[in-house]
């Protein structure tokens, strides 16, 4: 660990998010309706990121997130161990996102991709120059990754100990290639960050 490397923020780390989701789910099981509200507040931002990794436009992504929550209400009995609630939600969201992404036309998806590439430049013009410069370098480093790297890293970054077998089905990648691909993608990102002077 170098001096420039900060501790991961505890509140955003998946292990911490998963712990909060488990506690909220337990409170719901104990008949506290706020438990369910807190679970939704805790996990919706994660589900958004996971679903958007599939390149879905905002309206479809929102539909997928909502159907994930509906599935939780109807099929909560499938979550026998409360600690599994975070993983159950992300797997359900990925599965639905994958199905939806395959169903929509390729044209639609490529338009979305193009829009995202232009986003950083527009945003940075609106932000404070120095800060925007740092963010833009990070964005460019991530953007420079191949598409399959971006999707894989975005999905695993928000997940806590993702299950490779489930990932394989939801990413359309052989199960044996996920670990090595993740390693290569992280190495590429590291190089890009070093070149950008961020590490």
């Amino acid at each position, binding site marked *: *660990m170098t001096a420039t*490397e*900060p501790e*991961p*923020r505890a509140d*955003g*780390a998946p292990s911490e998010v998963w712990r909060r989701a*488990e*506690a909220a789910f*337990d409170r719901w*099981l*104990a008949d506290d*309706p706020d438990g*369910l*509200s807190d679970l*939704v*507040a805790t996990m*919706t*931002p994660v589900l*958004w*990121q996971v679903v*958007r990794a599939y390149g879905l436009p*905002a309206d479809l992504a*929102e539909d997928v*997130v*909502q159907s994930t*929550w*509906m599935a*939780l*209400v*109807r*099929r*909560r*009995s*499938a*979550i*026998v*161990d*409360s600690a599994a609630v975070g993983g159950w939600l992300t797997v359900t969201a990925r599965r639905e996102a994958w199905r939806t992404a395959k169903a929509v036309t390729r044209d639609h998806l490529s338009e979305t991709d193009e829009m*995202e590439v232009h*986003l*950083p430049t527009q*945003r940075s013009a609106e932000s404070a120059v120095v800060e925007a410069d740092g*963010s833009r370098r*990070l*964005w460019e*480093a*991530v953007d420079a990754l191949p598409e399959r790297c971006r999707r894989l*890293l*975005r999905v*695993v*970054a*928000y997940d806590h100990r993702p299950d490779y077998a489930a990932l394989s089905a939801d990413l359309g990648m052989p199960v044996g290639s996920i670990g090595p691909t993740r*390693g290569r993608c*992280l*190495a590429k*990102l*590291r190089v890009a*960050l070093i070149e950008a002077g*961020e590490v």
Partner: protein
Amino acid sequence: MSEMSREHLLQVVREVYDERDPVPAGLVERMQAAVAAEVAGVGLDLELMLLVEGERAFESVRTAGPETGSTAAYTLRFVLGEVELLVRVAPGDQARIDGWMVPPEPMTVRAVVGDGPARGTVVGESGRFEFTDLPAGLVRLRFEPHDPARPTFATPTFEI
């Protein structure tokens, strides 16, 4: 690549996407409203089982238990419509519950212990289930049939 730097890189990925594609304004609130409507729609109100046998044992354990350190096992019987539940409790600091549901039905059963974490297991084909190493205190059993058309039901709270 060390574990630390992998965590750091994944944190960078999260920072990038949190900033460039944040969860849309109002999405959390819309999802909370949708979930609340769904809960109201499917009627998640717990149906409560009725204790029909073992009340005396229940009372005596409650009053005599702490003083005498009694760990005598006892049996409770609950009913809800056609469903009957027998529960055998071995109280103590590592309490044990053996349950038997008639008729058997695929369902998840949870031991909800006070404010602590819930423990879950699945009712077997025989209708039997068990929990071990439960902390002493108040507990209620909550049953979620795997058939989503069937309502969730629960026992009243009892002491183990």
